[in-house]
């Protein structure tokens, strides 16, 4: 019993680190730009597909993909921000939501048309194949890697934004962009880079996910809803909140899958409802 439970908790932690990685990007974009990026799931899918296409057509392996894909997809994100998204900055966040939702539908449609619905399989890189028997469960090496890398990237991002000078500029930009620009900081460029970084994080998660899940056009739309719930529970825009909530919800979900599987796809939303009843701004959020 204890053995089974610890296995389920570990799996919950693995899934939680995915949620954390994805919700981090969303939280950064919302927290700093006040944009609800509904294209996040599609950008995650794009990351997985770019990695797959690189391997299939250009022979670019997993390690290079891990490095290059976020750059490529992040640049696409910057182009989108420059051409479309920035025109909506002063407006109600609803407009940005609609625009990014539209982008998501277009991206998914294009990939569905080109690659079909069943998608493609991405192999686990040779170095990370196999696994270790922990006694209570068999831990695939790749999943251990996912946890380590996600945590490193999450806390690295948190550190940069909350504890460095660059992060201070970013936070200042959200508080008062006009004043910051007056001090000689190129605020529009900073906003572009911020959006690009959030998108790059989604693409990075996509590459991480490719060897585990089937690379399909709709892989993002199935995960994005949960990730949004994570961001809401953590407190919209709170970076540390979304990381910790992502991990925590992974654990809660893992437990539910073990105790009562039919509830596992709604437990996240039940938690969300409860949290919002008690703390409307989320666990780590500040009321605005």
């Amino acid at each position, binding site marked *: 019993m204890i053995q*089974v439970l610890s*296995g*389920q908790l570990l*799996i*919950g932690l*693995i*899934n939680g680190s995915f949620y954390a990685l994805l919700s981090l990007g969303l939280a950064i974009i919302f927290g700093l730009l006040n944009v609800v990026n509904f294209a996040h799931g599609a950008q995650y899918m794009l990351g997985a597909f770019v990695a797959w296409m690189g391997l299939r057509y250009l022979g670019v392996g997993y390690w290079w993909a891990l490095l290059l894909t976020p750059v490529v997809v992040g640049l696409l994100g910057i182009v989108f921000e420059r051409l479309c998204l920035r025109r909506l900055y002063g407006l109600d966040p609803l407009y940005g939501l609609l625009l990014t939702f539209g982008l998501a539908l277009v991206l998914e449609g294009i990939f*569905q048309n080109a690659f*079909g*619905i*069943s*998608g*493609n*399989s991405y*192999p*686990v890189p040779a170095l990370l194949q196999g*696994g270790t028997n922990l006694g209570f*469960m*068999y831990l*695939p090496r*790749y*999943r251990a890697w996912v946890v380590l890398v996600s945590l490193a990237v999450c806390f690295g991002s948190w550190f940069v934004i909350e504890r460095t000078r660059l992060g201070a500029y970013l936070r200042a930009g959200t508080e008062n962009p006009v004043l910051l620009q007056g001090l000689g900081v190129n605020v529009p460029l900073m906003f572009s880079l911020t959006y690009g970084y959030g998108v790059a994080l989604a693409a990075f998660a996509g590459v991480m996910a490719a*060897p*585990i*899940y*089937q690379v*399909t056009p*709709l*892989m993002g739309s*199935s*995960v994005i809803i949960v990730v949004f719930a994570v961001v809401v529970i953590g407190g919209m825009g709170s970076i540390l909140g979304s990381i910790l909530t992502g991990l925590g919800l992974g654990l809660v979900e*893992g437990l539910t*899958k*073990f105790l009562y*599987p*039919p509830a*596992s*796809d709604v437990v996240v939303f039940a938690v969300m409802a409860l949290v919002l009843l008690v703390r409307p701004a989320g666990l780590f959020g500040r009321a605005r």
Partner: protein
Amino acid sequence: MSRTNRNFALIAALAVSTAGPAAAQVSDGVVKVGVLTDMTGAYSDLAGPGSVVAAQMAAEDFGGKVLGKPIVVISSDHQNKPDIASTTARRWFDEQQVDVIADLVTSSTALAVMPIAAEKRRITLLSGPGSTPIVGEKCTAYNVHYTYNTYAMAAGTGRAVVQQGGKSWFFITADYVFGKSLEADTSKVVEAAGGKIVGGVKAPFPTTDFSSYLLQAQGSGAQIVGLANAGADTINAIKQANEFGLTKKQSLAGLLVFLSDVHSLGLATAKGMYLTTAFYWDRDEASRAWSKRFFERAKKMPTMVQAGVYSELMHYFAAVQAAGTDDADKVMAKMREIPVNDFFAKNGRIGADGLHRHDMYLAQVKSPEESKYPWDYYRIVKTIPAAEAFEPPDPSCPLVKR
């Protein structure tokens, strides 16, 4: 015109009318086929655009005409929604003179359209859907369930796996009607063959991450982990089962796996898995010849559903020809009377319940080393005779004589 000439014309006209009394009996002067399928959703790879290609090939191969009247193929996307399917079917029947609707992948859409077709005396030829009530309590007199059903898939794979020594089973089941009926059908067969069910888990539908359920399957110690799900769920479950080393000690049995699933999984992941299929493109000379023509147009090898659409339509056209009319009652009688003999089925017979009983095949997925050319995916392990593959007529269907 001279007198002799006129007489000759009269005789010729008489001769034509006796040879083909029904030339005038094709309603609206056209035989119209509507392919109603999932063009973009979860089943668009195993049916979808490929089913439309198959229908067009059938129309062309039959010569583009039946009883001298043109064959027209139209298609529409039902998005796996029963309400869209039934609205489209009504429009096709009432306004567009559609005589027959083919494919109807997803059982819920088939079950929605069948009673409408029966009421309007038009024919439904099902290839994609799999649920067994279609030829049971929900059967209609104007329906043919042509390619497969969940019983045939479950029985084929379940029995074969138990015979190979896979006695203890654990199920990972998609938590909705289809998954549960697939699990129930398989359990019956497994227990009848001397196997035993040691446990199971119901996974919400859809699920992307199966690791938690796979862990439970590993903990159960069962020899066989049966996957009572379909499409993306099956694909992800198989992929992750490999990742978690489940396939080292236990074996997977996919209960509803299509060629398109194996293609997208890749052989390295899917190798060794048993599955049941109604059709495999590389099985013999005839299936290869047709499939290569299909490949030319669709750029992929046909699944059993797509091959089934072609075969059922050829059978329908032949029945219209033989009946000398497109009158639904007479065509249905002919379709039941004439056995199906083509690259798809040998001596297939359509019963009073509408089920097309034909041989099925137990296949095993090849390893990457065994695969010699593109799409070389299955080894046919054995032929399951029609009588064993399909269930006897279900007495809950009113058309079945007790």
